[in-house]
């Protein structure tokens, strides 16, 4: 039942081994051996204990990526990285029904670990099912575990589901930078949705998600140029910065004079730098 692990799984495995404190190595060895012996039955009872036995410490390592997947190490705790290794040990790493069963019976911490684990395993139907479930539950922490700091949604979801995920990110103000691979999944239809959402928020005098135009610039729809131009003069720093990035993506010569004018008065150094 053991799948051929993805390259990201192998990287995660070496990262875990390297960052697991020495005094926890015996605990891990025992835990892993029990998972091998007990399989799903053992995991169903003991998976929750991964958090306290293996640890909650965040990893370091920044962006880890290859041609198969991308993750940001800091968003993973030791227990999150242990999860796919335990699935592998228990022989359920490619058993969607078993993974779903664990998720269904898990508390929030277990669900978070499972969602993180999926980002390190080959895409399976259960990956999509649980991304949809994480979206449906409307729980901030669960949504972030599923959609942030990984390119799994970008790799696994169809256009409709991905667009829904982006709109939820916009609604919950999750930074676009944390949705890895989003630019590759931009479509004019998603851009239209984002611009409509911007207009709705502006009409209601509510904050606008800065990622909207930045992402829309990768697959422009009517109105994007005007929105970007307008946001270059926004009073909100994040929107100004997003507009600069969007303008660079659009690479339209009309922005040159706007950039020049903005440079004269931009008060914030990081934004001034971005204008160069």
């Amino acid at each position, binding site marked *: 039942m053991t799948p051929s692990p993805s390259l990201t799984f192998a990287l995660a495995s070496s990262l875990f081994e390297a960052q697991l404190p020495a005094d926890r190595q015996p605990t891990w060895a025992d835990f892993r051996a029990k998972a091998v012996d007990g399989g799903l039955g053992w995991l169903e009872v*003991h998976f*929750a204990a991964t958090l306290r*036995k293996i640890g909650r410490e965040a990893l370091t390592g920044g962006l880890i990526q290859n041609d198969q997947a991308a993750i940001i190490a800091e968003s993973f705790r030791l227990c999150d990285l242990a999860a796919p290794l335990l699935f592998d040990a228990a022989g359920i790493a490619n058993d969607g029904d078993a993974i779903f069963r664990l998720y269904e*019976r898990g*508390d929030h911490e277990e669900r978070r670990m499972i969602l993180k684990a999926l980002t390190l395993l080959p895409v399976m139907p259960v990956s999509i099912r649980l991304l949809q479930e994480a979206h449906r539950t409307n*729980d*901030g922490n669960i949504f972030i575990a599923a959609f942030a700091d990984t390119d799994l949604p970008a790799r696994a979801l169809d256009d409709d589901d991905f667009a829904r995920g982006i709109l939820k990110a916009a609604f919950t103000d999750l930074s676009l930078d944390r949705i890895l691979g989003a630019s590759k999944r931009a479509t004019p239809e998603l851009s239209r949705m984002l611009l409509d959402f911007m207009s709705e928020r502006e009409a209601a005098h509510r904050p606008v998600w800065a990622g909207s135009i930045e992402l829309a610039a990768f697959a422009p729809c009517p109105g994007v140029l005007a929105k970007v131009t307008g946001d270059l003069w926004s009073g909100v720093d994040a929107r100004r910065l997003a507009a600069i990035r969007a303008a660079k993506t659009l690479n339209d010569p009309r922005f040159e004079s706007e950039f020049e004018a903005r440079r004269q008065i931009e008060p914030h150094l990081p934004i001034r730098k971005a204008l160069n």
Partner: protein
Amino acid sequence: MIRIFEPHSHMFSRVTDDYENMAAAGVRVVLEPAFWLGQPRTHVGTFIDYFDTIIGWERHRAEQFGIHHVCTMGLNPREANDDRVNDAVMEVLPRYLEKNSVVGVGEIGLDDMTTAEEKFFAAQIQLAIEHNLPILIHTPHRDKKRGFERCVDIVRDSGIAPSRVLIDHGNEETIKITRETGYLQGFSIYPHTKMSPERMVKIILEFGVADIVINSACDWGVSDPLSVPKTVALLQQAGISDADIDTLVWKNPVKFFGRDGRGSEEEWMAKPTLDWTDTFDGNSVLRGQVSDTMDKNPEAR
């Protein structure tokens, strides 16, 4: 302010005002023992949903008021008598006993002192041993003295370490039975039954604070979630030192329940992050009062 670990409160049945008042009175941790729900459940699914709630939404709800929430899991003695649910609950219990906010097995014990109660009580003590957890024992309300003696017999036969046993709902009579057992002895302080704050003060004056915890056991009946802080005030008036009171309402329960990575003094002294906009499965404690959040919880963003 005296810090309080409330070791027995059925917050599932309480309203948000109770959480606010408890937090204001010094309660930092509440322990919710799984129990019955006022009327018999007829299938195991309702237990599963209840168990999921007390490790899920209820925990989240408590944290929104700056209180840590932990629980004990078990098949309560009342429903241990019900063949529609008892075996099936025992089957699902092991996976709940490994959850991180589960700090014990309970409430287990005796109520009517039937054969079925004894059987499931003994079986759950073995589960506690297997999962390295302490037990929280519910004792009968009727024929209490004999019930305590029977509980002590069953515990002794089980092989569980006395230091991992909390025997609850005691009174002036039962303390004579349990004083030398090495168990933690619990007293549930109610407005009209079991134990009053005044009687509790007399017990502390006579027996001291070693191996004793007090709780409100507040539920959906006439009970008071502030029983512990009210008793603390009376203890102070009676001249009991703050150090002894701290042992009674904080150190004793913290030492008993905070083990094996399932909570610790350090963890429980740190206040949960307050953010009323935080959701749990899409639900928050907010009912449209965002500005109130800021007023009541200045630490909230």
